[in-house]
């Protein structure tokens, strides 16, 4: 199943650009303040490691990784609502 409607940031509730998971991931990296970092870390990832990987390796892997997590989280929350 997939998320219906735009994804909003699980931390600050902002709808990033198109509302896609990848835009939300960019928003999280872009903001990068404590709450956002903590949320990412709470998902079992390391915000800083993701960032450094994004910086030091070609491609977009970190953003994708985070986007997937965000997508899953959104699905969970939608399911919970129902």
């Amino acid at each position, binding site marked *: 199943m997939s998320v219906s409607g735009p994804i909003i940031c699980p931390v600050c509730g902002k709808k990033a650009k198109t509302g896609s998971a990848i835009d939300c991931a960019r928003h999280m990296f872009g903001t990068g303040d404590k709450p956002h970092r903590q949320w990412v870390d709470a998902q079992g990832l390391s915000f*800083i490691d993701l960032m450094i990987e994004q910086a030091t390796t070609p491609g977009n892997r970190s953003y994708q990784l985070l986007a997937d997590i965000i997508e899953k989280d959104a699905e969970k929350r939608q399911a919970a609502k129902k």
Partner: protein
Amino acid sequence: MNRYTVINPHSKFTVINTHVHNVDGIAKVTGRATYTFDVVLPGMLYGKILRSPHPHAKIKGIDYSKAMALPGVKAVATGNDTIGAKQGIWRRYKDLCDEQLLTIDKVRYIGEPVAAVAAVTEEIAEKALELIDVDYEVLPATYEPLDAIKKDAPEIHEGFERNINVTRHIEWGDVDEGFAEADYIREDWFRCGGQAHMCMETRAAVSSYTPDGKLTIYHSNQSPYYMQGLMAGVMGMREGDIRVISPYVGGGFGGKFELDGAIFATAVLSKKCMKPVKIVFTREEDFIASKRRTPMFYYTRTGVKKDGTFLCREAKVFTNGGAYTGMGATALYLTGFFHSFPYVWQKGYRYDGYRVYTNTLPSTSMRGFGAPQAMWCSEQQIEWIAADLKLDPIEMRRKNSHYEGYEVPGQATIASCGINQCYDEIRKWIDSKGKLPKGHAIGLSACGFMSGGIFNWFDTPYSFSSAVITINQDGTVELNVGAQDIGQGSNTTMAIICAETLGCKLEDVKVHSSDTDYNPADLGAWGSRQTLMSGNAVKRAAEDAKKQLLEFAYAHSGLNIIYDLDIKDRWVHSVSRPERGWPYEEIVRKALRGKGGQRIMGRGFYTPYRKGMISPAYSYMLQGVEVEVDEETGKIKLCDSMTAHDCGQPINHLGLIGQLEGAFSMAAGYGYLEYMPYEDGKLMNPNLVDYKMIRAPEMPPANIAEIDTYEPEGPYGAKEAGEGLTNPTAAAIGNALFKLFGIQIKECPIRPEMVVNALKEKKAKTGK
């Protein structure tokens, strides 16, 4: 000597783009111009700053009792005499305000101010510094961004994990799809050096705090209004209680629109002893404790089609931020943006920038603001791609370039773009030179630049630019602007726009600038913004005043209203019957009577709207540089150059030539001379013997072909000319070396030793 040609010129103007003298010229060629450096106030004391010898250390205590005991010493200030506010120009983002100009607990780079002394003579102040005991606890330090992000690197600012200060991400289109479709992909690592602004007038300030709680500051800077606002923040005062006067300014180049040690220390000292205090940086202090162009590490990967169509590009950039943020966040964004310039990326563009704290001199804005680094990498890689694909480098660039009406997705709209003609002009120039002598080659580089930034990092409630015009009874004009002349000639440019618009003569206009008490706020001289932004404000103010004048002229003329009136060259006249008219000053006097003696005042302001995220307009250029290299010693000599440049409608003829030639010399220095080596956080050449800059014999002809386009957003169609030319030259020199020997140098400045080594390597590889 030098050639300057204007391609398709407009000549409908009476003042604009005519050959007029700089309005400050007489003062400057007769030694009358006085700078902050020259200011002396009654009862003034002289200050000196005690600087950290350590790149990273805790301050456990400062004992200055011995210094105070020295006869002639009037005050000593440390961080404890300040409100401890952390300053930064990004006032809206607390995280980016991280610098205490007199540090309280910690020093983060060699040269950071620790204490300041005010005494009756400079000599006594200097002696007093030796009598201050600072108890340091030296901490481990880190100097290079790629070391500073390592897990075990020392923490420079609390809470900044891995010392990452700012990150910036720019992305449009689908880059990964682009690489999938690409016939050819090339990736390179580059290293870009720092550069000193090296203003001839070092940082200098005179502050006078008076018992009425008011602070008057003479300061050498690029934006009196910024200084006023920022000082209010760090002194805990109201903006309105601070007056900043910036008399003639001995150069800025991006290094003088932040607070510096001189302005803050003098203010704190003056508040302590209620006397004027003056501090002038020595040249060494200016090198080690002002700020510098941001050194960068660039990884860039580009995907193209066989036919040379640019599909996509991805860049990862680490910048050496030094100890504090300064203007670094903006440089980080702009380098990423201009790394895509001046090209269209069919599939997409992706940039990730990371600014890393290190225990070195903070880096900041400098003429070009991130673009020289971006072009050094981009324009060399593009030249190499053209060679790899056996394509003509000019035509490959041409087919991928921006064009009028192009929209950089989500970033900017290009309303005027003359780059296509730039390619033609450079092609002509190359052909005209015929066969070059042995050891010579021409390197090319294209780029674009912004005309002012749409950044309100300062969070000012004022419009970006404003101007007030007052017409005196004899027709002379008082023009009050907040725009700051730092040598680029903005006073002259504003006077020209005022005279052209109002219809008076240039000598009728008196420009009043650089005093926050008497002039409207303006963001000042940075990002090549004043000609466009302040120019628009002046134009609107003049139009406002002119409209009021013409109302009286109509009433006076008794003409049928089908005739419209205009003013040109002090002659108020009917447009269709120019011979029918009246002297301007006569109308001015009549208007005064009509207004019950009130003088006519025109007001104008400008803030860019609906112009994207970066800038209202963009300049474009292609540059060719003829270089001679001694194959045995690796010595580089610049022989000739031609830049085809699109700055819209030129306003100030002499000023424009000066800006383009001057930017070239600075850009060339960045390319092969201006080197800032650090050892353990210490700058190794903080003087003008060891820091090499272009001097007259090294400067080649800087020929210019001005492509005269029309920029709808600019006053009379004008856009940027002050910074763009600092961007292409380093890459052009690199490309000449590539053409000459096939070597690829990925670090600037290119030093002769690097050339010799590259040639050795090539020989080892290819045998020739």
